[in-house]
């Protein structure tokens, strides 16, 4: 991204490889221009998110550096199961780490089999090539044992970063599974207390819960507004907002989303949208899309359809459900956190019927004409669930296109043909 002032000395202090980092930012800036700024009829409220993206390795990193100088701790993670309320309650800063670009894969493949999903290869690539300032600014990295790929990769990754905390994950929605998640949250709380040198207090935890709830509520409001036809915001822009949620200061972010939702409400009232009324409406479902993984949504919207929802961790799955902030003790409040986080219907759970139900509900509520199921190659949990999603929903007369891809551009031509043909099918 093009940064608005010179941060090279800051990046050098963080130990980044400046030449490679410059190359990365140059490519990202160009991609952002083509993918986002070239869109028509964008909401004015997107200016904030464009700015955040233009400063995603700049001003935001400076904020992290300043926060650390003031004694606060930065905690990085890769997954929506990591309860950021605990981090905020200890005055820490929670950030999502870079995992969305095909960068440093050659280096990554010295540690990982080639048949590893692009997301895992990406975070290895960013770490090994020293181009992720978020990772460089972390006091602690939390790695959750979700899929087999991540849990084995973290064994090696832990040695590439500073302090690392491994978090176990249940695989069943059972009482035992819930107990495990609670035990892991308590363990993480202890680790965070040690890293920050602070003690969790109920009042501060309640306040942190309120902060994160407010952000989730704002994202839910944004999601609901996309049910309108014409859609008031493109799927790309809405995805970007959900992506920025992992990097930005939560309070400032919530305000920006809320302001934009006010604007979108006016758009909906006046029938203004980003695509003509009646344009085919797509629900994306499947693996998370981290910045700058915009390949499939860009192809979909360039082909004349509009994406109206993301059944994804970077989207509805990650933001759904608020935490009940009633509780007198830290443990009671952690129980409330577990109540919420245990409902996340990640494909690592078996069986996982809740996810299919959520896809159905989202399709209905957002008035989607069809579903594109997106799975990263070698992401076995989502690739497996994709077949069931396609079978079940096609049997219910819901058109489904199942895509398996990665971060590369090699298959863009074939994907474009398949996506366009799917949109032709929706147009009838």
């Amino acid at each position: 991204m093009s940064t608005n002032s010179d941060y090279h000395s800051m990046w050098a202090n963080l130990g980044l490889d400046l030449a490679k980092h410059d190359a990365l930012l140059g490519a990202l800036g160009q991609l952002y221009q083509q993918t986002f700024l070239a869109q028509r009829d964008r909401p004015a409220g997107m200016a904030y998110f464009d700015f955040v993206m233009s400063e995603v390795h700049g001003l935001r990193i400076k904020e992290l550096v300043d926060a650390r100088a003031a004694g606060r701790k930065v905690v990085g993670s890769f997954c929506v199961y990591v309860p950021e309320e605990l981090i905020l309650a200890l005055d820490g800063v929670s950030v999502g780490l870079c995992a969305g670009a095909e960068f440093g894969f050659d280096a990554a493949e010295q540690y990982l089999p080639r048949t590893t999903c692009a997301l895992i290869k990406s975070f290895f690539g960013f770490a090994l090539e020293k181009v992720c300032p978020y990772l460089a600014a972390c006091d602690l990295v939390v790695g959750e044992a979700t899929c087999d790929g991540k849990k084995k990769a973290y064994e090696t990754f832990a040695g590439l970063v500073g302090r690392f905390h491994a978090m176990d994950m249940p695989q069943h929605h059972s009482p035992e599974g819930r107990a495990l998640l609670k035990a892991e949250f308590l363990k993480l709380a202890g680790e965070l207390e040690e890293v920050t040198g602070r003690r969790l207090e109920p009042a501060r935890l309640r306040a942190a819960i309120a902060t994160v709830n407010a952000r989730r509520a704002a994202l839910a409001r944004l999601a609901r507004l996309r049910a309108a036809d014409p859609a008031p915001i493109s799927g790309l822009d809405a995805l970007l907002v959900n992506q920025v949620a992992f990097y930005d200061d939560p309070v400032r972010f919530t305000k920006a989303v809320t302001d934009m939702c006010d604007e979108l409400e006016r758009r909906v009232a006046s029938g203004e949208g980003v695509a003509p009324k009646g344009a085919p409406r797509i629900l994306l479902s499947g693996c998370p899309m981290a910045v700058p993984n915009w390949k499939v949504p860009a192809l979909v919207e360039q082909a004349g359809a509009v994406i109206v929802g993301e059944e994804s961790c970077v989207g509805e799955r990650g933001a759904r459900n608020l935490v009940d902030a009633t509780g007198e003790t830290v443990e009671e409040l952690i129980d409330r956190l577990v109540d919420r986080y245990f409902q996340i219907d990640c494909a690592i759970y078996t069986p996982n019927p809740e996810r299919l139900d959520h896809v159905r509900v989202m399709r209905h509520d957002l008035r989607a004409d069809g579903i594109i199921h997106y799975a990263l190659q070698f992401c076995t949990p989502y690739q497996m669930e994709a077949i069931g999603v396609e079978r079940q929903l096609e049997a219910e007369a819901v058109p489904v296109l199942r895509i398996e891809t990665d971060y590369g551009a090699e298959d863009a031509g074939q994907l474009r043909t398949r996506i366009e043909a799917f949109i032709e099918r929706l147009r009838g």
Partner: protein
Amino acid sequence: MLATGLDIGSRTVKLVAIEGGRVVLEEVAETTHDPLGVCHRLLDGARPDRLVVTGYGRHLVQRHVEAEAVTEIRAAAAGARHLRPAARTVIDIGGQDTKAIALDDQGRVRKFEMNDKCAAGTGRFLEVMATALAYTLDEFAAAACSAPAAARVNSMCTVFAESEVVSLVARRTPRDQLALGIHAAIAERTAAMARRLLGDGEVFFCGGVARNGCVRARLAEELGRPVHTPDNPQTVAALGCALLAGDATP
């Protein structure tokens, strides 16, 4: 009104023009290194009133010529519907794509499958294998049809299969048996894709590879039912485009 369809494939460009419900022009040219030049040459001869384009070069042409673009899937479905109204499954093997398309009773695309990252078993694969065995394409199919048995070729990757075939020939494996083995493997692979959406109703086979009698026969055998191929399977998608150009809304 001259309604014209243009299919810019990876190996050949096909043009079909319709006037008054009749095909008045049908041309096939090699794509070459300059597909746009080939398209201009074909279009200069046709001078269409309405043009619909398809194929991997559809967006390239659309940037230079006023035309509506549709996917090969919609184009092949429209052509197949016209030529064989009872068709409910369309199999299209072109230069670097294999597609299987399910049609509903109105001839609309109900579901489709298409190769994504790998072009194994497509027209280009057959061309490379024919060359490796020192056959022309026609000789290759004829040799496969009359071979007494099939010799197994394990790789379906164009690059690896070529070296495998060369080493098998060096070990005196009969050429015609290798030819049959390759054809059988393509039919097997294509049938596996088609079975994912095969319903009742007729099977229609088009695209350049449908000109190959051995692939046609093996595919029918694999699917356990007749496979219908038109007189000129290579121009079905271009015909579909011309038909869509003739309609009010392509």
